């Protein structure tokens, strides 16, 4: 798929954290009752993860599921597989009330790497990023500066931030500004 062009062509920035526009992130939006095993069962079959609970995340073998609301999940996979997996899941859910849409192109994903990622996020989102309060395993949908966004931590030094594709340049701009190497707050213990 050489014709694939990310919103920013794979931009990156190095400061308090390293920021990279991620290529190859597949995303599928699932609308349906996440408490219904008729829905979570097929999700497990196709994505290999149990549907996480409120604001939870689940990952396995490059795939994953993010709890977005009681009736919305964002399923993660390889970009090239997304349409196929979306079709598979939709087929398995054909008899239940659910909507599956490949939204891999609708969003941009940034990876933040570095110890200061809590601080960088705390400059932009009204979210308590304190260790112990926000940890890997949780996804937070919120506002970052002036746009809607979601983020989660993969581990203590890695986070992923998702926003709409049209505002990728804005998101990259505010993240880079927050990650200015001379702008450390040194607020969090680690």
């Amino acid at each position, binding site marked *: 798929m050489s014709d694939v062009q990310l919103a920013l062509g794979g931009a990156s920035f190095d400061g308090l954290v390293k920021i990279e526009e991620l290529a190859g992130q597949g995303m599928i939006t699932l609308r349906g009752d996440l408490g219904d095993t008729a829905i979570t069962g097929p999700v497990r079959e196709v994505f290999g993860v149990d549907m996480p609970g*409120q604001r939870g995340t689940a990952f396995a073998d490059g795939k994953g599921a993010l709890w977005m609301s*009681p009736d919305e999940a964002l399923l993660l996979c390889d970009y090239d597989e997304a349409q196929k997996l979306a079709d598979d899941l939709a087929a398995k859910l054909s008899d239940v009330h659910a909507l599956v849409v490949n939204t891999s192109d609708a969003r941009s994903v940034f990876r933040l790497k570095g110890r200061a990622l809590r601080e960088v996020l705390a400059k932009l989102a009204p979210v308590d990023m304190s260790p112990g309060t926000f940890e890997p395993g949780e996804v937070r949908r919120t*506002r970052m500066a002036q746009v809607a966004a979601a983020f989660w931590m993969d581990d203590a030094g890695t986070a992923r931030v998702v926003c709409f594709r049209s505002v990728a340049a804005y998101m990259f701009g505010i993240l880079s500004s927050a990650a200015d190497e001379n702008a450390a707050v040194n607020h969090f213990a680690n």
Partner: protein
Amino acid sequence: MLLLTCPYCGVAAEETELHAGGEAHLKRFGPGSTDEEFQTYLFQRENPRGVHFERWRHANGCGKWFHAARDTVTLEVFGTYSAQTLEPPEDLLKKIRDKRPGFEWRDIA
């Protein structure tokens, strides 16, 4: 700046994550309703000094609408609850009655 806990995703969201949706528990009147019913539905709003029931949406968040009961003077939040209900839950009403004896709001007391 208000802080309301979204009953759907559990986040204690600050006002910048929220969208205010006005008075709660409106009954819709459509075709066939009288002018007065329709006028009341569309335009007449409670504006109490005290206990109020409102609609809010966790717009920069899980996207869910929910209800909040709050005091418009002190900004005390008595509770937030599901949008899929025609009236406030009884345990919340009891809590409000205890804190604000004699309160009245539309036909709720």
